[in-house]
């Protein structure tokens, strides 16, 4: 893994080939790489924007697409009102624009390729992005390891990848989906109308055929702390709980 990262972590130029509005605050950007890379589900890229005077801004974005031979990767960018890079993507960037990025990066928050034990995924908002790469990868690879996803969003309309997740819930064997809406009532019986708590995590984990062997948690620090404590309470060892926290 280390060698793979070292060999491919050069800056490269890529082209925006498609922009898709996912939710009121999140758009997907499909980028065609000039140099194909082989990423693992859960990895990220660093994106670098350069102003005419040479000023640069760099941010990391998780890859939403599954590993594939395609030269196109998907990044989902949430527009942060006080942001510097995300408003550029939402308000300025257009199909055909060139963007600099390097990757794939990150050697820890990675889909456990050889595991047969169920995997528990817990995300909030755009924190579902690296988890989505894992779910898409599980589907594309034909792996059978059971997966449950608990995804917190403000409203039904804010659920990132909602339609795809609902479709996967119907079509993908051994995939359990639980949405949690924090500012709206959920209408599906299997969803929740509250913020994450230990009871919710235990309920979602219980939809797996056996206890999860590992957990991936991605969201704000406050969200991750609650989810991790809940996963520990289920009996998971600290070492098999992997987290990615937005800075705030």
């Amino acid at each position, binding site marked *: *893994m*280390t060698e793979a*990262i*070292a060999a491919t*972590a050069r800056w490269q*130029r890529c082209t925006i080939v498609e922009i898709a509005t996912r939710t009121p605050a999140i758009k997907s950007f499909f980028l065609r790489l000039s140099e194909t890379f082989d990423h693992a589900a859960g990895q990220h890229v*660093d994106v*670098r*924007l*350069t*102003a*005419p005077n040479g*000023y*640069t*801004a*760099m*941010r*990391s974005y998780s890859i939403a697409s599954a590993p594939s031979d395609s030269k196109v990767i998907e990044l989902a960018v949430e527009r942060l009102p006080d942001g*510097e890079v995300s408003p*550029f993507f939402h308000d*300025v*960037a257009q199909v055909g*624009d*060139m*963007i*600099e990025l*390097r990757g794939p*990066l*990150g*050697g*820890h*928050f990675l889909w456990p390729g050889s595991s047969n034990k169920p995997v528990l995924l817990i995300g909030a908002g755009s924190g579902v992005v690296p988890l989505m790469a894992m779910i898409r990868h599980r589907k594309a690879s034909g792996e059978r390891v059971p997966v449950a996803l608990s995804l917190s969003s403000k409203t039904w309309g804010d659920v990132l990848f909602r339609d795809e997740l609902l479709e996967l819930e119907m079509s993908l064997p051994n995939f359990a989906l639980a949405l949690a809406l924090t500012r709206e009532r959920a209408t599906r019986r299997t969803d929740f109308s509250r913020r994450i708590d230990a009871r919710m995590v235990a309920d979602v984990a219980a939809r797996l055929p056996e206890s999860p062997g590992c957990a991936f948690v991605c969201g704000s*620090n406050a969200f991750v*702390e609650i989810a*991790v*404590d809940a*996963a*520990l309470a289920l009996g998971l060892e*600290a*070492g098999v*709980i*992997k*987290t990615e*926290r*937005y*800075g*705030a």
Partner: protein
Amino acid sequence: MVTRGFTGRQSGSEQLDRIPPGQHLVDNFPVLTAGPTPRIDPADWTFTLKVGPRPVKAWSWSEFNVLPRTRMTRDIHCVTSWSKLNTAWEGVAVDDILADAGLTAPTPFALAHCYDGYSTNVPLADLATGKAIVALKYEGQPLPRDHGGPARLLVPHLYFWKSAKWVNGLQFTERDEAGFWELRGYHMYGDPWNEQRYTND
């Protein structure tokens, strides 16, 4: 390559010379951790100094807290691209830890070890001569748990993953041995001013 239509914020230009390339200023103090946040009772806390596999000295929380105190206010730089200015810390200088153990320069390299299994490598030259402390306080208060409390390493002139949270020991090594992130694609040294983010930077 200039990005079409991007001008950037570029505010706070009076502090521009304090912000390394590719970094941006934040006012908050982001928390980034690869796993669960450990709960460590100071009553159970120990700090162990090793040379190779050999423990040289260990301190309990109360023993460690009577070592000489050092305060430092520094700018810090996270590899995820945020920088924070004027962070105020208090703790025990690595020099004073070594002196209390009766050591000067055991080997040129060290690994910091932590309660959560994390580790990171830092050369002795970047720990000694007042450059690094084991921090016990942040902004005058006991170090919060999610920022590494009760104690973290502080090596403020390197990317902040070197400032290991929940530190419980320093191990001096003959060779420069990679730690947790260094084994996972991150740079062995991590100088923010040279943008040493990933292995071959």
